[in-house]
């Protein structure tokens, strides 16, 4: 099920629980899958010295991000026995409490699904040219940092 074409991973605004449910439902026909590993990133209402975070605004260098994502995907398919892999990342404003990252990795067995999912999330955080600007309740902004 290796995908060789560059896929768009970006969605406008938050990712809804309905979209996540539908994505899971779409895998019902793939009966060789025995394990799904899902990661959901949610915008946190961090209390900073500058104020409380009410939303994050995401921007990207899209061409580069999609090419980078393609390489990450190919490398993980090489390394692990996977059935399929889906990544959705928000762009624009996502309010606190809503989902901005949905990573969905499926495999025949759980170990590959879980390991690949963990590795994929780390790669997304540190290798994709995406930036988050935290918008505070007082309307000030702070650039997000990944640790």
């Amino acid at each position: 099920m290796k995908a060789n074409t560059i896929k768009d991973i970006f969605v406008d605004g938050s990712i809804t629980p309905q979209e996540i449910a539908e994505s899971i439902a779409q895998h019902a026909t793939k009966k060789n899958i025995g394990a799904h590993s899902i990661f959901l990133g949610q915008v946190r209402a961090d209390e900073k010295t500058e104020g409380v975070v009410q939303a994050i605004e995401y921007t990207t260098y899209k061409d580069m991000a999609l090419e980078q994502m393609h390489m990450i995907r190919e490398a993980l398919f090489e390394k692990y026995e996977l059935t399929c892999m889906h990544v959705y990342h928000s762009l624009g404003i996502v309010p606190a409490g809503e989902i901005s990252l949905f990573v969905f990795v499926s495999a025949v067995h759980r170990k590959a699904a879980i390991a690949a999912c963990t590795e994929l999330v780390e790669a997304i955080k540190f290798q994709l040219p995406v930036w988050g600007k935290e918008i505070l309740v007082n309307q000030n902004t702070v650039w997000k940092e990944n640790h």
Partner: protein
Amino acid sequence: MNILFFGNLVDITQKAQEALSGTTNTQTLQALLCKKYPALQSVKYFIAVNGKMIQENTPLKEDDTVALMPPFSGG
């Protein structure tokens, strides 16, 4: 060439892109940009030429796209 700015660099340059000419490598481009936007000297950023990250001084052509990118913070 086309210069792209991302993340907090946009706060410094007040623009997402800019056309520049007359520089032949990334080192002279950086010097030029630092002169124009002194605050760039105090922030960390990576450089990509035509979508590929570079670590060393790289020759530039007029039709290249150079991206200045602060550390990534997606997810």
